[in-house]
Protein backbone atom coordinates (compact mmCIF):
# COMPACT_ATOMS: atom_id res chain seq x y z
CA UNK A 1 0.00 0.00 0.00
CA UNK A 2 2.49 2.59 1.18
CA UNK A 3 5.05 1.51 -1.42
CA UNK A 4 2.59 1.95 -4.26
CA UNK A 5 1.46 5.30 -2.95
CA UNK A 6 4.99 6.62 -2.35
CA UNK A 7 6.24 5.36 -5.68
CA UNK A 8 3.41 7.13 -7.46
CA UNK A 9 4.00 10.30 -5.50
CA UNK A 10 7.68 10.40 -6.44
CA UNK A 11 7.47 9.22 -10.02
CA UNK A 12 7.21 12.69 -11.53
CA UNK A 13 10.51 13.83 -10.06
CA UNK A 14 12.13 10.49 -10.97
CA UNK A 15 11.10 10.99 -14.59
CA UNK A 16 12.40 14.57 -14.67
CA UNK A 17 15.73 13.62 -13.12
CA UNK A 18 16.06 10.65 -15.46
CA UNK A 19 15.42 12.79 -18.53
CA UNK A 20 17.84 15.50 -17.41
CA UNK A 21 20.63 13.12 -16.41
CA UNK A 22 20.10 10.87 -19.44
CA UNK A 23 20.22 13.74 -21.91
CA UNK A 24 23.27 15.29 -20.25
CA UNK A 25 25.11 11.98 -20.55
CA UNK A 26 24.08 11.53 -24.18
CA UNK A 27 25.01 15.09 -25.02
CA UNK A 28 28.41 14.85 -23.36
CA UNK A 29 29.26 11.54 -24.98
CA UNK A 30 28.05 12.69 -28.39
CA UNK A 31 30.74 15.35 -28.59
CA UNK A 32 33.53 12.94 -27.69
CA UNK A 33 34.41 11.98 -31.29
CA UNK A 34 35.13 15.61 -32.25
CA UNK A 35 36.81 16.11 -28.92
CA UNK A 36 39.15 13.15 -29.53
CA UNK A 37 40.06 14.52 -32.96
CA UNK A 38 41.14 17.82 -31.54
CA UNK A 39 42.88 16.05 -28.72
CA UNK A 40 46.34 17.32 -29.54
CA UNK A 41 45.35 20.93 -29.20
CA UNK A 42 43.35 20.02 -26.14
CA UNK A 43 46.32 18.44 -24.49
CA UNK A 44 48.24 21.64 -25.08
CA UNK A 45 45.41 23.68 -23.65
CA UNK A 46 45.30 21.44 -20.64
CA UNK A 47 48.98 21.82 -20.07
CA UNK A 48 48.50 25.55 -19.87
CA UNK A 49 46.06 25.13 -16.96
CA UNK A 50 47.43 25.60 -13.47
CA UNK A 51 48.65 22.36 -12.00
CA UNK A 52 46.38 22.52 -9.00
CA UNK A 53 43.34 22.73 -11.23
CA UNK A 54 44.46 19.75 -13.24
CA UNK A 55 44.92 17.80 -10.05
CA UNK A 56 41.61 18.92 -8.65
CA UNK A 57 39.72 17.41 -11.54
CA UNK A 58 41.87 14.30 -11.75
CA UNK A 59 43.19 15.26 -15.17
CA UNK A 60 46.69 14.22 -14.21
CA UNK A 61 45.68 10.62 -13.86
CA UNK A 62 43.23 10.19 -16.69
CA UNK A 63 43.77 10.69 -20.37
CA UNK A 64 40.67 12.44 -21.58
CA UNK A 65 41.52 11.70 -25.18
CA UNK A 66 40.69 8.12 -24.29
CA UNK A 67 36.98 7.20 -24.11
CA UNK A 68 37.12 5.81 -20.58
CA UNK A 69 39.20 8.74 -19.39
CA UNK A 70 36.78 11.16 -20.98
CA UNK A 71 33.88 9.29 -19.39
CA UNK A 72 35.54 9.39 -15.97
CA UNK A 73 36.23 13.12 -16.05
CA UNK A 74 33.24 14.49 -17.93
CA UNK A 75 30.32 12.08 -17.46
CA UNK A 76 31.04 10.37 -14.19
CA UNK A 77 31.36 13.67 -12.34
CA UNK A 78 27.78 14.40 -13.38
CA UNK A 79 26.25 11.05 -12.53
CA UNK A 80 27.88 10.96 -9.11
CA UNK A 81 27.02 14.54 -8.11
CA UNK A 82 23.55 14.82 -9.64
CA UNK A 83 22.62 11.32 -8.50
CA UNK A 84 23.74 12.14 -4.96
CA UNK A 85 21.67 15.32 -4.93
CA UNK A 86 18.64 13.39 -6.19
CA UNK A 87 19.13 10.66 -3.57
CA UNK A 88 19.48 13.17 -0.75
CA UNK A 89 16.34 15.08 -1.76
CA UNK A 90 14.29 11.90 -2.15
CA UNK A 91 15.32 10.33 1.16
CA UNK A 92 15.10 13.57 3.15
CA UNK A 93 11.43 13.94 2.43
CA UNK A 94 10.13 10.47 2.49
CA UNK A 95 9.58 9.81 6.19
CA UNK A 96 9.41 13.31 7.61
CA UNK A 97 6.93 14.58 5.02
CA UNK A 98 4.14 12.71 6.79
CA UNK A 99 4.97 14.40 10.08
CA UNK A 100 5.61 17.77 8.50
CA UNK A 101 2.23 17.73 6.79
CA UNK A 102 0.57 15.96 9.72
CA UNK A 103 -0.72 13.12 7.59
CA UNK A 104 1.13 10.73 9.89
CA UNK A 105 -1.88 10.63 12.23
CA UNK A 106 -3.83 9.05 9.42
CA UNK A 107 -1.14 6.53 8.61
CA UNK A 108 -0.44 5.55 12.21
CA UNK A 109 -4.11 4.86 12.90
CA UNK A 110 -4.06 2.10 10.27
CA UNK A 111 -3.19 -1.48 11.18
CA UNK A 112 0.49 -1.35 10.28
CA UNK A 113 3.64 -1.29 12.37
CA UNK A 114 6.15 1.54 12.36
CA UNK A 115 8.71 -0.87 10.91
CA UNK A 116 6.42 -1.54 7.96
CA UNK A 117 6.19 2.17 7.27
CA UNK A 118 9.98 2.53 7.36
CA UNK A 119 10.54 -0.58 5.24
CA UNK A 120 8.12 0.39 2.48
CA UNK A 121 9.44 3.94 2.28
CA UNK A 122 13.04 2.74 2.32
CA UNK A 123 12.19 0.39 -0.50
CA UNK A 124 10.88 3.27 -2.58
CA UNK A 125 14.19 5.09 -2.10
CA UNK A 126 16.20 2.03 -3.15
CA UNK A 127 14.06 1.32 -6.18
CA UNK A 128 14.18 4.93 -7.36
CA UNK A 129 17.96 5.08 -7.00
CA UNK A 130 18.34 1.86 -8.96
CA UNK A 131 16.04 3.15 -11.68
CA UNK A 132 17.96 6.42 -12.00
CA UNK A 133 21.23 4.51 -12.21
CA UNK A 134 19.66 2.15 -14.72
CA UNK A 135 18.75 5.14 -16.87
CA UNK A 136 22.24 6.62 -16.62
CA UNK A 137 23.79 3.23 -17.47
CA UNK A 138 21.58 2.82 -20.52
CA UNK A 139 22.24 6.42 -21.60
CA UNK A 140 25.98 5.80 -21.26
CA UNK A 141 25.85 2.60 -23.30
CA UNK A 142 23.91 4.39 -26.03
CA UNK A 143 26.37 7.29 -25.81
CA UNK A 144 29.34 4.97 -26.25
CA UNK A 145 27.98 4.02 -29.68
CA UNK A 146 28.91 7.47 -31.01
CA UNK A 147 32.53 6.36 -30.85
CA UNK A 148 33.24 3.45 -33.12
CA UNK A 149 36.92 2.86 -32.75
CA UNK A 150 37.23 2.60 -28.97
CA UNK A 151 36.22 -0.29 -26.77
CA UNK A 152 34.62 0.11 -23.38
CA UNK A 153 35.93 -2.49 -20.93
CA UNK A 154 32.78 -4.01 -19.41
CA UNK A 155 34.32 -4.78 -16.03
CA UNK A 156 35.60 -1.23 -15.50
CA UNK A 157 32.31 0.25 -16.60
CA UNK A 158 30.43 -2.06 -14.24
CA UNK A 159 32.70 -1.06 -11.37
CA UNK A 160 32.02 2.61 -12.06
CA UNK A 161 28.25 2.00 -12.00
CA UNK A 162 28.45 -0.02 -8.78
CA UNK A 163 30.57 2.69 -7.16
CA UNK A 164 28.04 5.36 -8.19
CA UNK A 165 25.15 3.33 -6.73
CA UNK A 166 27.08 2.84 -3.48
CA UNK A 167 27.72 6.57 -3.30
CA UNK A 168 24.06 7.41 -3.92
CA UNK A 169 22.95 4.90 -1.31
CA UNK A 170 25.37 6.40 1.21
CA UNK A 171 23.85 9.87 0.90
CA UNK A 172 20.35 8.44 0.72
CA UNK A 173 20.86 6.43 3.91
CA UNK A 174 22.21 9.47 5.76
CA UNK A 175 19.27 11.60 4.63
CA UNK A 176 16.84 8.80 5.46
CA UNK A 177 18.20 8.63 9.00
CA UNK A 178 17.74 12.39 9.36
CA UNK A 179 14.23 11.96 8.01
CA UNK A 180 13.44 9.55 10.84
CA UNK A 181 14.82 11.84 13.52
CA UNK A 182 13.80 15.33 12.45
CA UNK A 183 10.37 16.68 11.71
CA UNK A 184 10.80 19.73 9.50
CA UNK A 185 11.49 18.60 5.95
CA UNK A 186 13.04 21.93 5.02
CA UNK A 187 15.75 21.54 7.65
CA UNK A 188 16.47 17.95 6.72
CA UNK A 189 16.79 18.90 3.07
CA UNK A 190 19.24 21.70 3.89
CA UNK A 191 21.39 19.43 6.03
CA UNK A 192 21.52 16.52 3.61
CA UNK A 193 22.12 18.68 0.55
CA UNK A 194 24.77 20.48 2.59
CA UNK A 195 26.50 17.18 3.29
CA UNK A 196 26.51 16.28 -0.40
CA UNK A 197 27.90 19.62 -1.55
CA UNK A 198 30.42 20.08 1.26
CA UNK A 199 31.87 16.60 0.77
CA UNK A 200 31.95 17.21 -2.98
CA UNK A 201 34.03 20.34 -2.56
CA UNK A 202 36.17 18.71 0.10
CA UNK A 203 37.11 16.12 -2.49
CA UNK A 204 38.01 18.80 -5.04
CA UNK A 205 39.95 20.89 -2.52
CA UNK A 206 41.87 17.88 -1.25
CA UNK A 207 43.44 17.57 -4.72
CA UNK A 208 44.64 21.15 -4.80
CA UNK A 209 47.09 21.27 -1.95
CA UNK A 210 48.90 18.58 -0.03
CA UNK A 211 48.27 20.44 3.22
CA UNK A 212 44.58 19.64 3.07
CA UNK A 213 44.88 16.30 1.38
CA UNK A 214 43.52 14.57 4.51
CA UNK A 215 40.11 16.03 3.64
CA UNK A 216 39.66 13.34 1.05
CA UNK A 217 39.04 10.73 3.72
CA UNK A 218 35.89 12.55 4.76
CA UNK A 219 34.47 12.67 1.27
CA UNK A 220 32.57 9.73 -0.21
CA UNK A 221 33.24 11.35 -3.58
CA UNK A 222 36.92 10.45 -3.08
CA UNK A 223 35.88 6.84 -2.45
CA UNK A 224 34.45 6.64 -5.94
CA UNK A 225 37.21 8.64 -7.67
CA UNK A 226 37.10 7.35 -11.26
CA UNK A 227 40.86 7.61 -11.86
CA UNK A 228 41.96 4.68 -9.66
CA UNK A 229 38.91 2.66 -10.71
CA UNK A 230 39.73 3.09 -14.39
CA UNK A 231 43.50 2.73 -14.01
CA UNK A 232 43.56 -0.17 -11.53
CA UNK A 233 40.22 -1.71 -12.42
CA UNK A 234 39.33 -1.98 -8.73
CA UNK A 235 37.66 -0.07 -5.88
CA UNK A 236 39.66 0.21 -2.68
CA UNK A 237 38.06 -2.34 -0.27
CA UNK A 238 38.36 0.07 2.65
CA UNK A 239 36.19 2.61 0.82
CA UNK A 240 33.57 -0.02 0.06
CA UNK A 241 33.62 -1.01 3.71
CA UNK A 242 33.19 2.59 4.93
CA UNK A 243 30.26 3.26 2.60
CA UNK A 244 28.59 -0.05 3.46
CA UNK A 245 29.01 0.71 7.15
CA UNK A 246 27.51 4.19 6.81
CA UNK A 247 24.56 2.78 4.87
CA UNK A 248 23.90 -0.02 7.36
CA UNK A 249 24.32 2.06 10.50
CA UNK A 250 22.09 4.84 9.13
CA UNK A 251 19.33 2.43 8.19
CA UNK A 252 19.46 0.57 11.50
CA UNK A 253 19.39 3.92 13.31
CA UNK A 254 16.39 5.02 11.27
CA UNK A 255 14.47 1.91 12.30
CA UNK A 256 15.43 2.25 15.95
CA UNK A 257 14.50 5.91 16.16
CA UNK A 258 11.27 5.66 14.22
CA UNK A 259 9.97 2.65 16.14
CA UNK A 260 10.43 4.29 19.51
CA UNK A 261 9.68 7.92 18.94
CA UNK A 262 6.61 9.80 20.07
CA UNK A 263 4.78 11.04 17.03
CA UNK A 264 2.41 13.81 17.99
CA UNK A 265 1.53 16.45 15.47
Amino acid at each position, binding site marked *: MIFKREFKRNIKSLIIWSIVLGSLILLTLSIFPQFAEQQKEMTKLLESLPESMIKAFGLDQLNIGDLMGYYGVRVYAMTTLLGSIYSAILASNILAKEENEKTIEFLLS*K*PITRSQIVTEKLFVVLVNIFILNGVSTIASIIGFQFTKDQEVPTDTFTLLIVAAILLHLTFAALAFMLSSIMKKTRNILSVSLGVVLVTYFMNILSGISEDIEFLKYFSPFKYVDPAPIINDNAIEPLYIFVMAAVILISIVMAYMVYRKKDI*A*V
Partner: protein
Amino acid sequence: MKIVDIKNLTKTYNKNRGIINLTFSIEEGEIFGFIGPNGAGKSTTIRTLLNFIYPTSGSATVFGKDIVKDSKEIRQNVGYLPSEIHYYDDMRVIDLLKYSAGFYKKFNPNRMKELAERLDLDLHKKIEDLSFGNRKKVGIVQALLHGPKLLILDEPTSGLDPLMQNTFFELLLEERKKGTTIFFSSHILSEVQKLCDRVAIIKEGELVKVETIENLTKKNLKYITITFEQTEPMDLKLDGIVKKEVNGNEMTLLYSGDMKALLNQLNALPVKDLLIQEPTLEEVFMHYYEK
Protein backbone atom coordinates in the same frame (compact mmCIF):
# COMPACT_ATOMS: atom_id res chain seq x y z
CA MET B 1 -16.08 -7.24 28.55
CA LYS B 2 -13.96 -4.16 28.96
CA ILE B 3 -13.19 -2.73 25.56
CA VAL B 4 -10.80 -0.11 26.90
CA ASP B 5 -9.07 -0.61 30.23
CA ILE B 6 -6.69 2.10 31.38
CA LYS B 7 -4.57 1.57 34.50
CA ASN B 8 -2.48 4.31 36.11
CA LEU B 9 -1.60 5.63 32.69
CA THR B 10 0.89 8.48 32.78
CA LYS B 11 2.42 10.34 29.90
CA THR B 12 4.65 13.35 30.30
CA TYR B 13 6.51 14.86 27.41
CA ASN B 14 8.47 18.02 26.88
CA LYS B 15 6.19 21.03 26.97
CA ASN B 16 2.87 19.27 27.28
CA ARG B 17 1.35 18.62 30.63
CA GLY B 18 0.36 15.16 29.48
CA ILE B 19 -1.72 12.88 31.65
CA ILE B 20 -1.17 11.72 35.19
CA ASN B 21 -2.23 8.39 36.63
CA LEU B 22 -5.41 7.93 34.60
CA THR B 23 -7.52 4.91 35.49
CA PHE B 24 -10.87 4.11 33.93
CA SER B 25 -12.49 1.57 31.66
CA ILE B 26 -15.09 1.46 28.91
CA GLU B 27 -17.57 -1.38 28.59
CA GLU B 28 -18.58 -3.03 25.35
CA GLY B 29 -21.35 -1.24 23.49
CA GLU B 30 -21.07 1.92 25.52
CA ILE B 31 -20.94 5.47 24.27
CA PHE B 32 -18.36 6.88 26.61
CA GLY B 33 -17.83 10.61 26.85
CA PHE B 34 -14.44 12.07 27.63
CA ILE B 35 -14.68 15.69 28.53
CA GLY B 36 -12.45 18.48 29.65
CA PRO B 37 -11.29 21.84 28.40
CA ASN B 38 -8.70 22.18 25.64
CA GLY B 39 -5.29 21.11 26.86
CA ALA B 40 -6.62 18.88 29.62
CA GLY B 41 -5.01 15.78 28.13
CA LYS B 42 -7.83 14.28 26.05
CA SER B 43 -5.83 14.03 22.86
CA THR B 44 -2.77 12.81 24.75
CA THR B 45 -4.85 9.95 26.17
CA ILE B 46 -6.16 9.02 22.73
CA ARG B 47 -2.73 9.21 21.12
CA THR B 48 -1.34 6.97 23.83
CA LEU B 49 -4.14 4.45 23.32
CA LEU B 50 -3.32 4.34 19.61
CA ASN B 51 0.44 4.18 20.34
CA PHE B 52 1.31 7.37 18.47
CA ILE B 53 3.12 8.17 21.70
CA TYR B 54 4.52 5.80 24.29
CA PRO B 55 3.26 5.76 27.89
CA THR B 56 5.70 7.01 30.53
CA SER B 57 4.26 4.60 33.07
CA GLY B 58 1.16 2.56 33.67
CA SER B 59 -0.59 0.44 31.10
CA ALA B 60 -3.74 0.09 29.09
CA THR B 61 -5.49 -2.53 27.02
CA VAL B 62 -7.93 -2.27 24.14
CA PHE B 63 -9.98 -5.44 23.37
CA GLY B 64 -7.85 -7.01 26.12
CA LYS B 65 -4.68 -6.42 24.10
CA ASP B 66 -1.71 -4.34 25.19
CA ILE B 67 -1.65 -0.89 23.56
CA VAL B 68 2.09 -0.98 22.96
CA LYS B 69 2.77 -4.61 22.07
CA ASP B 70 -0.39 -5.39 20.12
CA SER B 71 -1.01 -1.98 18.64
CA LYS B 72 -1.27 -3.20 15.07
CA GLU B 73 -3.94 -5.80 15.91
CA ILE B 74 -5.86 -3.27 17.95
CA ARG B 75 -5.93 -0.77 15.12
CA GLN B 76 -7.38 -3.37 12.76
CA ASN B 77 -10.65 -2.89 14.64
CA VAL B 78 -10.47 0.77 15.59
CA GLY B 79 -11.86 3.70 13.68
CA TYR B 80 -10.16 6.98 14.56
CA LEU B 81 -11.37 10.47 13.82
CA PRO B 82 -8.70 13.04 14.74
CA SER B 83 -9.65 16.50 15.93
CA GLU B 84 -7.75 18.12 13.10
CA ILE B 85 -7.95 16.38 9.78
CA HIS B 86 -4.84 16.40 7.64
CA TYR B 87 -4.92 14.34 4.47
CA TYR B 88 -2.81 14.12 1.35
CA ASP B 89 -3.66 17.20 -0.69
CA ASP B 90 -2.90 15.61 -4.03
CA MET B 91 -5.60 12.96 -3.54
CA ARG B 92 -9.29 13.06 -4.34
CA VAL B 93 -11.70 12.02 -1.60
CA ILE B 94 -12.28 8.65 -3.22
CA ASP B 95 -8.52 8.01 -3.54
CA LEU B 96 -8.01 8.72 0.13
CA LEU B 97 -10.87 6.46 1.18
CA LYS B 98 -9.64 3.64 -1.04
CA TYR B 99 -6.09 4.09 0.24
CA SER B 100 -7.42 3.95 3.79
CA ALA B 101 -9.58 0.91 3.06
CA GLY B 102 -6.61 -0.90 1.55
CA PHE B 103 -5.03 -1.25 4.98
CA TYR B 104 -7.96 -3.26 6.35
CA LYS B 105 -9.15 -6.71 5.54
CA LYS B 106 -12.60 -5.59 4.54
CA PHE B 107 -13.69 -2.92 2.06
CA ASN B 108 -17.24 -2.30 0.99
CA PRO B 109 -17.62 0.24 -1.85
CA ASN B 110 -21.38 0.38 -1.37
CA ARG B 111 -20.94 1.36 2.25
CA MET B 112 -18.58 4.12 1.17
CA LYS B 113 -21.14 5.53 -1.28
CA GLU B 114 -23.93 5.25 1.27
CA LEU B 115 -21.95 7.09 3.94
CA ALA B 116 -20.85 9.79 1.49
CA GLU B 117 -24.42 10.28 0.36
CA ARG B 118 -25.79 10.61 3.86
CA LEU B 119 -23.12 13.12 4.78
CA ASP B 120 -23.54 14.94 1.49
CA LEU B 121 -19.91 14.48 0.53
CA ASP B 122 -18.63 14.69 -3.04
CA LEU B 123 -16.27 11.74 -3.53
CA HIS B 124 -14.61 13.18 -6.60
CA LYS B 125 -13.42 16.47 -5.19
CA LYS B 126 -9.76 17.10 -4.50
CA ILE B 127 -8.96 17.12 -0.82
CA GLU B 128 -7.11 20.43 -1.03
CA ASP B 129 -10.32 22.07 -2.30
CA LEU B 130 -12.42 20.92 0.66
CA SER B 131 -13.60 23.15 3.46
CA PHE B 132 -12.86 22.32 7.09
CA GLY B 133 -16.31 20.79 7.57
CA ASN B 134 -16.05 18.68 4.42
CA ARG B 135 -12.65 17.40 5.49
CA LYS B 136 -14.27 16.35 8.72
CA LYS B 137 -16.83 14.38 6.74
CA VAL B 138 -14.05 12.57 4.89
CA GLY B 139 -12.63 11.76 8.31
CA ILE B 140 -15.96 10.40 9.50
CA VAL B 141 -16.37 8.13 6.48
CA GLN B 142 -12.74 7.04 6.83
CA ALA B 143 -13.33 6.13 10.48
CA LEU B 144 -16.55 4.20 9.87
CA LEU B 145 -15.76 2.51 6.57
CA HIS B 146 -14.10 -0.67 7.79
CA GLY B 147 -16.77 -1.44 10.39
CA PRO B 148 -14.63 -0.96 13.50
CA LYS B 149 -15.53 -2.43 16.88
CA LEU B 150 -14.28 0.68 18.65
CA LEU B 151 -14.67 4.23 17.42
CA ILE B 152 -12.35 6.82 18.88
CA LEU B 153 -13.61 10.31 18.12
CA ASP B 154 -11.58 13.35 19.08
CA GLU B 155 -13.71 16.51 19.01
CA PRO B 156 -15.79 15.02 16.20
CA THR B 157 -18.38 17.74 15.74
CA SER B 158 -16.13 20.75 15.27
CA GLY B 159 -16.70 22.17 11.81
CA LEU B 160 -19.99 20.35 11.23
CA ASP B 161 -23.14 22.41 10.90
CA PRO B 162 -26.04 21.49 13.23
CA LEU B 163 -27.91 19.55 10.55
CA MET B 164 -24.83 17.52 9.75
CA GLN B 165 -24.22 16.98 13.46
CA ASN B 166 -27.63 15.34 13.68
CA THR B 167 -26.86 13.04 10.77
CA PHE B 168 -23.57 12.23 12.41
CA PHE B 169 -25.24 11.42 15.74
CA GLU B 170 -27.73 9.20 13.90
CA LEU B 171 -24.83 7.35 12.32
CA LEU B 172 -23.24 6.89 15.74
CA LEU B 173 -26.46 5.52 17.23
CA GLU B 174 -26.73 3.08 14.33
CA GLU B 175 -23.17 1.98 14.97
CA ARG B 176 -23.99 1.47 18.62
CA LYS B 177 -26.93 -0.75 17.66
CA LYS B 178 -24.45 -2.92 15.77
CA GLY B 179 -22.49 -3.28 18.99
CA THR B 180 -19.78 -0.73 18.32
CA THR B 181 -18.24 0.90 21.37
CA ILE B 182 -17.72 4.64 21.06
CA PHE B 183 -15.15 6.76 22.84
CA PHE B 184 -16.27 10.34 22.39
CA SER B 185 -13.92 13.13 23.38
CA SER B 186 -15.30 16.64 23.54
CA HIS B 187 -15.27 19.94 25.32
CA ILE B 188 -18.87 20.64 24.40
CA LEU B 189 -20.98 19.27 27.21
CA SER B 190 -24.41 19.39 25.62
CA GLU B 191 -23.43 16.97 22.87
CA VAL B 192 -21.93 14.57 25.38
CA GLN B 193 -25.12 14.88 27.40
CA LYS B 194 -27.21 14.08 24.34
CA LEU B 195 -25.31 11.00 23.34
CA CYS B 196 -23.26 9.35 26.03
CA ASP B 197 -24.01 6.75 28.67
CA ARG B 198 -21.13 7.57 30.93
CA VAL B 199 -18.59 10.30 31.02
CA ALA B 200 -15.06 10.75 32.33
CA ILE B 201 -14.12 14.27 33.31
CA ILE B 202 -10.48 15.18 32.94
CA LYS B 203 -8.78 18.28 34.25
CA GLU B 204 -5.14 19.28 33.95
CA GLY B 205 -4.17 15.75 33.03
CA GLU B 206 -5.94 14.11 35.93
CA LEU B 207 -9.20 12.23 36.09
CA VAL B 208 -11.79 14.13 38.11
CA LYS B 209 -14.61 11.64 38.03
CA VAL B 210 -16.34 8.94 36.02
CA GLU B 211 -20.12 9.19 36.24
CA THR B 212 -23.17 8.08 34.38
CA ILE B 213 -24.84 11.01 32.67
CA GLU B 214 -27.92 10.25 34.70
CA ASN B 215 -26.08 10.58 37.98
CA LEU B 216 -24.30 13.67 36.91
CA THR B 217 -27.43 15.51 35.95
CA LYS B 218 -30.10 14.06 38.23
CA LYS B 219 -28.76 12.67 41.42
CA ASN B 220 -27.54 15.63 43.33
CA LEU B 221 -27.64 18.96 41.73
CA LYS B 222 -30.73 21.09 41.16
CA TYR B 223 -30.96 24.43 39.55
CA ILE B 224 -33.41 26.47 41.64
CA THR B 225 -34.91 29.85 40.87
CA ILE B 226 -36.82 31.57 43.67
CA THR B 227 -38.75 34.78 43.18
CA PHE B 228 -39.61 36.70 46.35
CA GLU B 229 -42.47 39.12 46.92
CA GLN B 230 -40.19 41.96 47.95
CA THR B 231 -36.71 43.01 47.02
CA GLU B 232 -35.27 43.13 50.55
CA PRO B 233 -32.27 40.84 50.83
CA MET B 234 -33.25 37.40 51.83
CA ASP B 235 -30.88 34.81 53.07
CA LEU B 236 -30.93 31.07 53.05
CA LYS B 237 -28.64 29.17 55.36
CA LEU B 238 -28.40 25.64 54.17
CA ASP B 239 -25.85 22.90 53.66
CA GLY B 240 -25.43 22.01 50.03
CA ILE B 241 -25.67 25.37 48.34
CA VAL B 242 -23.03 25.21 45.68
CA LYS B 243 -23.62 28.56 44.11
CA LYS B 244 -25.89 31.45 44.93
CA GLU B 245 -26.75 34.52 42.93
CA VAL B 246 -29.15 37.30 43.90
CA ASN B 247 -30.62 39.55 41.27
CA GLY B 248 -33.27 41.96 42.58
CA ASN B 249 -36.06 39.83 44.02
CA GLU B 250 -34.79 36.76 42.18
CA MET B 251 -32.40 34.25 43.65
CA THR B 252 -30.79 31.40 41.74
CA LEU B 253 -29.23 28.48 43.50
CA LEU B 254 -27.21 25.47 42.52
CA TYR B 255 -28.27 23.10 45.26
CA SER B 256 -27.13 19.60 46.08
CA GLY B 257 -28.49 19.28 49.63
CA ASP B 258 -31.62 17.81 51.14
CA MET B 259 -34.80 18.97 49.42
CA LYS B 260 -36.92 18.84 52.55
CA ALA B 261 -34.62 21.18 54.41
CA LEU B 262 -34.85 23.66 51.57
CA LEU B 263 -38.63 23.50 51.43
CA ASN B 264 -38.87 23.96 55.19
CA GLN B 265 -36.86 27.14 55.01
CA LEU B 266 -38.74 28.45 52.02
CA ASN B 267 -41.99 27.85 53.86
CA ALA B 268 -41.18 30.63 56.28
CA LEU B 269 -40.24 33.08 53.54
CA PRO B 270 -42.43 35.25 51.27
CA VAL B 271 -41.94 33.16 48.15
CA LYS B 272 -43.82 34.28 45.08
CA ASP B 273 -42.57 31.71 42.62
CA LEU B 274 -40.36 28.67 42.67
CA LEU B 275 -38.73 26.88 39.78
CA ILE B 276 -36.74 23.66 40.19
CA GLN B 277 -34.85 22.46 37.16
CA GLU B 278 -32.27 19.89 36.10
CA PRO B 279 -28.98 21.70 35.85
CA THR B 280 -27.22 21.63 32.52
CA LEU B 281 -24.08 19.59 32.35
CA GLU B 282 -22.15 22.83 32.04
CA GLU B 283 -23.24 23.79 35.52
CA VAL B 284 -22.50 20.35 36.90
CA PHE B 285 -19.18 20.48 35.19
CA MET B 286 -18.32 23.89 36.62
CA HIS B 287 -19.24 22.57 40.00
CA TYR B 288 -16.69 19.77 39.73
CA TYR B 289 -14.13 22.08 38.33
CA GLU B 290 -14.35 24.77 40.93
CA LYS B 291 -13.32 22.40 43.67
